[in-house]
């Protein structure tokens, strides 16, 4: 056998790994959603779309789906706006900029549950926010979701910030110089040169932040457990609650819905953003 033929066989272990731990769980997620898999039974039977019919009839999932979409959308918009502004401010490499980048990146290293519990202390009824502003954010059905979104942004913004800074640093300096010579002001340079040229960073950050927002679980679990009165109950919390009832097939159907929602939203957004990217 020729040398190049051996190379093909060398990927067998890796392929096995990918299939068993990446592909198979996803395939099973599709399959189990159409079964009556339950802790009460020994057999698993196909029930068609029965789980989905029951879910839609119950109606609770629509409310949770809306909350999840609201969460994902707000996270995506706010985290990217904040990151863009910060990236433009910290674009230059100097000591202050380096320190600030580190400061913004530190929360990324904290476990989401820990972050949730820390902010639960800040925002709760006996926390500092309640003491100063006399408002219990986590006890308010109106503000609790925003409080969890704030923590999500605080926790994950460091990654996107570095991506934007890297993108901005790759914009050719001479282009900006030309623009300045032509009389463009800073706002015009940002709007007409920098933003269009960091297209790939925008695509990456927008897609990633939206998917992260739609998949949120741990920060919400730590801060509100879906409360008060289910006002922050995102789909993953709904899954957790229903999983404990032992109806595993029914619950898996919810996770399939979440997967499809992310897929349906994320793919067109990525395609749209990719088309708008400017090639240098």
């Amino acid at each position, binding site marked *: 056998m020729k040398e190049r033929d051996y190379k093909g066989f060398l990927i067998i272990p890796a392929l096995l790994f990918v299939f068993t731990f990446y592909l*198979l769980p996803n395939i099973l997620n599709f399959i189990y959603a159409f079964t009556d898999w339950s802790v009460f039974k020994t057999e698993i039977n196909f029930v068609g779309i029965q789980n989905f019919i029951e879910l839609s009839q119950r109606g609770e999932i629509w409310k949770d789906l809306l909350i999840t979409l609201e969460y994902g959308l707000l996270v995506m918009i706010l985290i990217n706006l904040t990151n863009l502004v910060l990236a433009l401010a910290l674009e230059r490499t100097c000591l202050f900029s380096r320190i600030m980048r580190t400061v913004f990146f530190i929360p990324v290293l904290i476990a989401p549950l820990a972050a949730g519990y820390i902010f639960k202390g800040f925002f709760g009824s006996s926390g500092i926010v309640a003491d100063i502003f006399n408002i219990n954010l986590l006890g308010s059905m109106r503000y609790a979701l925003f409080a969890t979104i704030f923590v999500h942004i605080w926790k994950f913004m460091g990654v996107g910030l570095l991506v934007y800074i890297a993108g901005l640093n790759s914009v050719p300096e001479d282009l900006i110089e030309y623009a300045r010579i032509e009389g463009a002001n800073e706002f015009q340079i940002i709007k007409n040169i920098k933003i269009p040229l960091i297209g790939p960073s925008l695509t990456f950050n927008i897609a990633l932040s939206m998917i992260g927002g739609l998949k949120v679980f741990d920060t919400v679990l730590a801060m509100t457990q879906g409360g008060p009165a289910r006002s922050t109950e995102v789909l993953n919390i709904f899954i957790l609650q229903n999983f404990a009832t032992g109806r595993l097939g029914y619950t898996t159907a919810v996770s399939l819905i979440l997967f499809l929602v992310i897929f349906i939203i994320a793919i067109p957004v990525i395609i749209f953003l990719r088309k708008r990217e400017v090639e240098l």
Partner: protein
Amino acid sequence: MKKYLIILLVLVFSISILGIGVGCKEEAAPEEEEAVEETAEEEAPAEEEEEAEEAPAEEEAAEEVSMESVEKLTVWYNPDAPKEINMLADGFQEKTGIEVEVVTIPAPFPSTVLTKWAADERPDILNWHTGVNRLYEVRAEETLQDLSDMEFVDKTLNNYLDATSLDGKCYGTMLVEPVLIGVWYNKEVFERAGINMPADTPVGYDGLLELMKKLKDAGEVPMYSGGGDTWTLQIIPILMLTEVFNNTDIGNELNTNQTTYTDERIVQAFEKLKEIHDMGYVNDDFLSATFVDQQEKLWNGDAAMVPQVGALGNAIFANQEGDISDVIGYFPLSETGNMNVLSFSTGNITMYAPKTGDPAQELAAREFIKYATSEGYQAVLDSTGSQPMLEGFTGPADRPQYKVEAYGTLDDYPSGQGWNSFVIPSYGPLPAYLSELVAGTKTAEEVGAAMQLDHEASAKEIGLEGF
């Protein structure tokens, strides 16, 4: 090269599928054995006398099995349950040379265990909840060893074994006394409001309302609600449902679809929870306050009462120095009287012996339970400070006074099990429904209706008659 790659991919796919298939087969093997046993049992004459004759033969067969080959027993344990299990593990290892590994199952404990159960994973000893519904969840008859012939069964006091029994068979044992569910109160706050206990102990819900009005008029927060930890909202409904579930056949009616969760006898409990919140008898931040807040506010005298499980008293005791009974008291409460609710859970160091398919391991598991309920038991009592659950043992002489007072109410008032231990199917995420109830986004009837939908779906899955 292309040809090789295609062959390679097909090979990888086939091996993976084969691997999964083999895994399933290996796991299915014990089930197949059980199926054979079940078939044999079905073929055998059904008369009780003949079944009784078969029992000694089975015992003889069991005696032939030896523990010699057993090196290790695995225990699945709830992280919140008492740590005295380690004491038993060490004692058993010293006695038999068999290592006992206590594996702490991460939270959420019930769903993690059930997921493993669904994947046919079994430990040798399982620390699991009690009650008919919880035994159905693990399909007790099929997956757990019947321990009815063990010594501890006859020695168990009161009617405690009901909690680990199903259809007349005992599947588990408990080592620590049941937890009480009732109302914990701050004695100093009551005194400030001119309430003299135990003479003024409220009788039933009406009595509680009167008491709360008196406390509110005196400028106190009558009750501290911890809706941020939604499970705490279940306590008032538990108290208000104890009488009807223990004194009537409503549990069986639910299990056989003769009544529903929208039954007025059930809905009243949710209405009462709502009423307490609507009348301003609880703290303003009830939607975000937590179980820990409940402990702090009660201890500090910021609230007069907290309806809670015994864990509240234990937590306060653990965080304070010395006797807490000067400040904290307890009284039972139910819909029309003062029935105590006994809660049996994993915290009682419950132990079940799953069928693992290995006779030697199963025998060793029974030996471990035997050790824990005989020579190893007194040390558990001494360490936990619990009253004995079995005859022939003594509780500690220096029990904390708050416990003496709380458990003393068992002598003065009747007691019963929590309502949910009478119901077989699951009833959905009740804490979430109750948080909507107190926030005003669901009515009491809607809570009942939502539970009923989950109840029916679950009953159909279990295959209960009438659904």
